[in-house]
């Protein structure tokens, strides 16, 4: 037999280990307090950048925010009496994001419907879901390079079409994943009830499932749009930039197009102070649009998911 440690025979009241009424040893208490403080300090540091960025955007961008800034073209440097602004970039952003949504929203929604309603647990579904998740992690600059190779390289021309194509590829996985989440939240009982009433899968899917998931789907689409509106990297060498208003003719889509994000990038690196200030004002407008969309959509989803 091996030597087992002797059992404690001392009475409980004399044993410091078993004295349940004594406070924790100093070391353990200090460790707890120290870790709590550390965790709170680090969490506070995490909130710092958001506040600093927002305060700076308001401080630098607000003084220059006037109506004429939103509706005029960028003025050449040094011309004081010309109205200066970035109206063309706002229009360009809306055009390109709109075009991208036109492609990615239907494709993304239908793909998500397949994943949640038709694919069930088949290996194909798992593969597609996996690829969509991986696609959402592809850096947007690589998506830009892809759009360059597909469109700019073949047409030998930087164009709005190439920019929208890149944005559409960026948006697609966001829309698929969020739509699938929204569809999954619809209770199976509703599908069964609809089938029991004699509806086929098309009717069940479109009239019952999609209808009741519509708020969730919409917030997903809004998030994707907000993300695309702020994308810069894939636009730098696909849509490029232009100092003029976007061409209203359909052919205008095959020429370079300005966007707010590229304007901010160009102006941030500019040596001229007035262009730097314009970059802050453009940031204010862009952040206003993007944050409003994300906050609204996230609040709606949050309420829905907590009420269930």
């Amino acid at each position, binding site marked *: 037999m091996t030597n087992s440690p002797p059992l404690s025979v001392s009475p409980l009241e004399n044993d410091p280990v078993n004295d349940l009424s004594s406070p924790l040893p100093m070391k353990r208490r200090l460790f707890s307090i120290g870790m709590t403080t550390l965790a709170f300090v680090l969490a506070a540091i995490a909130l710092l950048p958001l506040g600093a960025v927002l305060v700076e955007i308001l401080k630098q961008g607000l003084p220059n925010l006037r109506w004429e800034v939103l509706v005029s073209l960028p003025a050449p440097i040094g011309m004081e009496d010309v109205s200066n602004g970035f109206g063309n970039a706002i229009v360009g952003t809306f055009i390109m994001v709109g075009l991208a949504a036109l492609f990615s929203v239907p494709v993304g929604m*239908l*793909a998500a419907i397949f994943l949640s309603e038709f694919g069930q647990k088949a290996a194909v579904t798992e593969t*597609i879901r*996996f690829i969509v998740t*991986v696609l959402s992690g*592809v*850096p947007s600059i690589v998506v830009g390079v892809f759009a360059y190779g597909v469109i700019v390289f073949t047409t030998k021309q930087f164009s709005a079409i190439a920019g929208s194509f890149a944005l559409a590829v960026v948006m697609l996985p966001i829309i698929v994943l969020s739509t699938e989440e929204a569809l999954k939240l619809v209770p199976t009982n509703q599908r069964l009830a609809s089938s029991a009433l004699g509806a*086929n899968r*098309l009717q069940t899917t479109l009239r019952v499932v999609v209808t009741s998931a519509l708020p969730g789907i919409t917030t997903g689409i809004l998030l994707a749009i907000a993300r695309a509106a702020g994308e810069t990297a894939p636009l*730098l060498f696909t849509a490029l930039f232009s100092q003029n208003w976007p061409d209203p003719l359909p052919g205008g889509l095959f020429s370079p197009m300005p966007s707010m994000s590229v304007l901010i990038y160009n102006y941030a690196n500019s040596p001229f102070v007035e262009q730097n200030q314009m970059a802050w004002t453009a940031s204010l407008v862009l952040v206003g649009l993007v944050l409003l969309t994300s906050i609204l959509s996230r609040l709606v989803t949050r309420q829905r998911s907590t009420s269930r």
Partner: protein
Amino acid sequence: MTAGTPEDLQNTSSLDLTSTEDEGLWLDVAFTWLVRLFAFCTIAIMVWMTVVIFQQAFPAIQEFGIGFLWSQEWDVGALLFGALPYIYGTLATSTIALLIAIPIGLSVALVTSENFLPPWVRSPIAFLVELIAAIPSVIIGLWGIFVLIPFLLPITLWLHNTLGWIPLFSTEPFGPGLLPAGVILAIMILPTMAAISREVLIAVPGELRSASGALGATRWETIFRVILPAGLSGTLGAATLALGRALGETMAVTMVIGNSPLISISLLDPASSIPSLLANQFAEALDDLHIGALMYLALILFVLTLVVNIIAVLMVRFLSPNLRES
């Protein structure tokens, strides 16, 4: 309002439950194929992307071979291209970013998932941290140029003056460089790190907490010995996913890294990353070999992020199945 006679019922084909000739059925079949088609569309895009980037990079792959990876030369005029400075810059900035973002992200996850604070304070904090992800990268970069770099400059100067004997701080800082780029990256990947770790920690069953508490462990002993080990694969997955984001982040890094094609061990020196080089040179690349070299870099970045993301997804999905189901 009168009920149909049995004869009426016989005549209405819509009540024939065995019918397969209804036009609704055709629509149904067509719709099934339509959604299947669009689902395969996503796979097609992924394959297409791989093919296009590989194809465009092919001239450069033929010209420089695998040696491209460790060649340091980048001379557009002489058409000599090497990837090492950019690979180094990408990995160095991502490492700095992870070193900062992992402890902070975990703290946020702990503070917002454990019961330190009442629930009505917890979720707004988590929400605010996630909001950073919604701010466009180019705007974080603008803030980096005009706020973060001037703020970091005295700190980095002090680091150089007092710790200059360490090679990492051996050069005089002048503003843009690896360190500011790493800090910016840390800010940008923090939401990913915090949100996913939080989800993982919330999924740790409450019984484990109670059991640990019943054995006499304090809150932090429970966290270190029970909760973090239970959520380990998930938090590692979160860190890997954050790494994937950091490797590909472009605008903010491009604006503060200094864009120098030289390798320097000092964190205070300007550098370059693969995305920042692509952002800087792609629009002006004219020569086929230059475009090819940039495409080759994009391919390296693509493969790198693909591998990292696949590992991350697998880690979060498969290594913690017991947490996922509960």
